[in-house]
């Protein structure tokens, strides 16, 4: 069986099995999900190894005609970016299942929705057909609503509704945009490869590109349409926040890349300066707002806005065709991966602390480092990665994007590099208020509940990934770089 379909079908089959299983078989459900997560990791690793970076381009293609009358086909394939993001999704899926191991409430339904979300994400990263791309995109977005509404916490009805409305508003922009592309090309095909060979009229590109960019950008935490994301992160259960911030936000960036930039390069170049400004504002704004949050998860949520701004900045710098385009795109894709793993680690650990203490308020704690040393240490690693510390994966991503920014727009470059200080400010604020200082006697009972055994596994995996790519960026950059060169060569 072809590799990509195997990866896509693993969660599909898992979902079918889950639905057939009895409600009570909680243990079995967990085990099956964990196994399926592990299997996708193994298959993704095989994909990573099997992808030939020297020849680059799209590999592992599979085509099955679907609705020939309007040119829809089941067309899968990945380039280097896809390989990396498929890997990201597998890791977050597997560690997400392990993170939710202790869930007791409606386990079957929870995992069913979560697996559905995972299917959607895999589909998007592999689809080379616009119809399927959009189809999987919606599959990935919709389960968020029940997941937040049923298993969420805090103001979940509001958060779920807000998230849904924002994302559907994004889709409402996307749908006409995608249809316009289909019709304007007049090729009677939804195939992305075929469409990318077509040269669209520049006026058309300039008109349609904002629909695509903003439509996908909403999901990528684009300023000023980011409001749903921190609210949604906070209300969602841990593993959902992990998938949401870790992977789902990357769908937006990936969509901009594969549909927006690939199909409408001139439109992208026309709008890039404007969107660079928005991205820079997002980076700085997110950091400043994060400084004043009182809730752990809100800090992480706004840090995501800030960090995804780096991805968007990289994407926009890449289309400007400057000398730094390669670095910019390499950095953006690297950041998608690094940020995905980092936020997964963040939410996974913040979620653990919340599960044990039922508090997310930073000021409630103080000196937690003495009470839960392991959980706190892990959170600190994630925080340091967020602050762009060398030795952890994000450093390389930020380095490349900042370098490109400095080359293309020196002022923007200096501003975003200064943003590094702001990141350190809000991260250290959390450390100092929640983890350092005199221990709060209220939480003495947490001493016995520090992370141990099984709970350490998902976090250890995520940290290992951050450290490995932090010290050996080449493992990933070789893959990204060849694809980037090929991608930009088409311009």
């Amino acid at each position: 069986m072809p590799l990509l379909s195997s990866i896509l079908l693993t969660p599909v089959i898992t979902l079918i099995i889950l639905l057939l299983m009895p409600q009570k078989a909680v243990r079995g459900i967990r085990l099956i999900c964990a196994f399926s997560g592990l299997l996708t990791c193994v298959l993704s690793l095989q994909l990573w190894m099997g992808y030939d970076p020297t020849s680059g381009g799209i590999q592992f293609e599979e085509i099955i005609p679907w609705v020939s009358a309007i040119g829809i086909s089941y067309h899968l394939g990945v380039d280097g970016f896809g390989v990396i993001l498929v890997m990201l999704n597998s890791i977050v899926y597997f560690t997400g299942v392990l993170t939710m191991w202790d869930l007791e409430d409606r386990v079957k339904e929870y995992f069913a929705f979560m697996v559905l979300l995972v299917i959607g994400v895999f589909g998007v990263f592999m689809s080379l057909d616009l119809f399927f791309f959009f189809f999987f995109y919606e599959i990935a977005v919709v389960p968020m609503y029940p997941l937040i509404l049923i298993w969420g916490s805090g103001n979940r009805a509001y958060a779920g509704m807000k998230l849904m409305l924002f994302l559907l508003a994004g889709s409402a922009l996307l749908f006409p945009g995608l249809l316009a592309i289909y019709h304007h090309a007049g090729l009677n095909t939804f195939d992305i490869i075929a469409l990318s060979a077509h040269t669209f009229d520049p006026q058309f590109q300039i008109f349609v590109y904002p629909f695509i960019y903003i439509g996908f950008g909403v999901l990528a935490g684009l300023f000023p349409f980011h409001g749903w994301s921190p609210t949604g992160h906070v209300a969602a259960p841990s593993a959902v926040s992990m998938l949401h911030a870790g992977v789902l936000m990357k769908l937006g960036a990936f969509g901009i890349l594969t549909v927006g930039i690939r199909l409408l390069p001139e439109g992208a170049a026309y709008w890039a300066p404007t969107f660079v400004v928005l991205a820079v504002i997002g980076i700085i704004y997110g950091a400043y707002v994060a400084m004043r949050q009182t809730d752990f998860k809100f800090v992480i949520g706004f840090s995501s806005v800030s960090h995804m701004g780096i991805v968007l900045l990289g994407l926009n710098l890449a289309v400007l065709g400057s000398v730094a385009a390669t670095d910019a795109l390499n950095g953006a894709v690297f950041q998608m991966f690094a940020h995905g793993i980092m936020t997964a680690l963040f939410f996974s650990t913040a979620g653990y602390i919340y599960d044990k203490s039922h508090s997310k308020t930073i000021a409630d704690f103080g000196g937690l480092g003495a009470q839960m040393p392991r959980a706190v240490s892990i959170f600190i690693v994630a925080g340091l990665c967020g602050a762009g510390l060398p030795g952890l994966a994000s450093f390389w991503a930020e380095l490349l994007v900042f370098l490109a920014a400095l080359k293309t727009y020196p002022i923007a470059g200096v501003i975003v590099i200064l943003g590094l200080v702001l990141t350190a400010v809000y991260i250290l604020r959390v450390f100092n208020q929640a983890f350092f200082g005199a221990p709060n006697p209220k939480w003495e009972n947490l001493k016995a509940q520090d992370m141990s055994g099984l709970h350490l596994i998902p976090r250890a995996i995520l940290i290992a990934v951050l450290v490995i790519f932090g010290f050996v960026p080449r493992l990933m950059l070789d893959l990204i770089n060849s694809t980037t060169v090929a991608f930009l060569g088409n311009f």
Partner: protein
Amino acid sequence: MDTLSLILLTTISPLACFIIAIIFLVQQPRAAQGLVLFGSAISLLSAIGLLVQGPVEPLRFLWFQSGAIQLQFGFILDGASLMFGVVVAFITACIMLYSVGYMAHDPGKTRYFALLSFFAWSMLSFVYAVDLLQSFIFWELVGLSSFFLIGFWFEKPEAAGAARKAFLMTRVGDVGLFIGILLILQLVSNFDIPSLLDPQTGLSTQVSPGILNAITLLIFIGIMGKSAQFPLHTWLPDAMEGPTPVSALLHSATMVAAGVFLMIRLHPLFMAAQDTALIVLSIATFTAILASTIAMVDTDIKKVLAYSSISQLGFMLMALAAGSLFAGVFHLITHAVFKALLFLCSGIYIHAYHTNSMAEIGRSGGRRLKATTLGLIIGGAALSGVPPLAGFWSKEEIFAQLGHNGFNIYMAGAFLAAFLTAYYTFRMIFLITKPDQAPASDHSHPEPLNMKAPVLILTLGAIVLGFFGSNIAQGLGLIPQHHSVILMISAVGVVILGILIAYFDYGRDNAPRTGFISKIAPLDTLFTNKWYIDDIYRVTIVAITHALSRILHWIENHVLDGNYDRFGLGILRTGAKSTRVQGGWMQLYLGWAIILLAVVALYLGLQ
């Protein structure tokens, strides 16, 4: 053994110890401690092995490639890195040995030793790094280890605050450094230090003097942060909140030394950038004086030593900016030894009497700790530049260089700072050894052997190291400045003057025990309040950052989110209103139908 295995042993063994200790030995602090000491010994021996082998060609490996950028990592094995590598490994080993006693009863012992090991790894890797980006990475990791060690007792809010301050202030400097490095990468797509420095094809031949000045200045901002130079120096005195052995490490061979070492590494670039060199010289001289003035009024022994470090770092940077690589390296090495010594001595006092106040230590009978007091006096005399101790020779080189290049104002500044150094150092010594009242009770504290041994070894170092100046110069491939006798005499004169005044103020019988500066009230207030620099930051930069984040937070909640919410609620309300149209109320339907018919009829009629 071949060079590669030696360098790997030097750098990797502390890392391996860190990983093993932090993952497997949390419950076995004694095992962790033993392992870390063992790793440190291996590291020291291999570093010495490398030094004995002598300089060799750099080793390079491909790290990664992105677009036109190719990054390598590897090891540079020239005189400077070989010598300083040994100093780092040696001082770390001494301090680890000392910590066995100092931290004997601390519950977080494994974490402590693991972090020390991590610190050693990052500093050694920084010293041997061949690529500028590699240097930057380990430079940041050095900062990170300092953050964790300063905040080691994180349950104390002061310690946590000091750690944060250190991290943020050095971070501000690092942003400058980072931009500088990225500028280099843009201009030459290469970070290899030897080729950047190459006199024929290096960076200084490829870019205009203006750009070179800009780049070096940005790099110097990083050095200012790390080596605690004005105006980014205020984190270092606060960093005293960490355990004393950590301060000893931080102030001698690691952290603050990293900044100076970076300047040593890139010395040719700074020499090619004349304007930057002058700026560095001015800031360093000013810092040397500023820090000494604060040291002469502070009462906390560790704070005095901290300000003294800031001031001595200023001396090193002065030497480098004035053009003498040798003087900079020499003073860096001698200072590493006698400053580590002084901190270790202060640690024994603090450990024994549970006070940081010099006067208190004296009153409690500080001078009864014989070995420690010997170390304090020798170390202090070396710091002041009393001949023939280590500090005398290295400071002498700095004066000689300043005189040689005709930097007369800076020379005067250096003399002033040297005078103040002698004064505050002997003030410290007199306060401890000549207390105003005899100790109340005679309960003597033992000096444990594992704390005494490092002190004695370093004392020996502070005595003899000065005579190895010519060896160090040789190692760098340089010739030391010719010493002028007049300069030497005046330097000694300044030192003696400082000591005499300190004796008059604090040392003689019936001494007033107040500094001469207290007679000049405005200066006294200024110095006691540390020139108000922290207060200025509090009302400017810190306040502005807070205000901005408050404003943007308000915008997020009230402008952006508020309007989205209003928009959403508006739609809901419109929806709720429009449902009335279909309320199932027959009369209303009928009414609408009639109105509609009337309109149609009217329209048709008007046709």
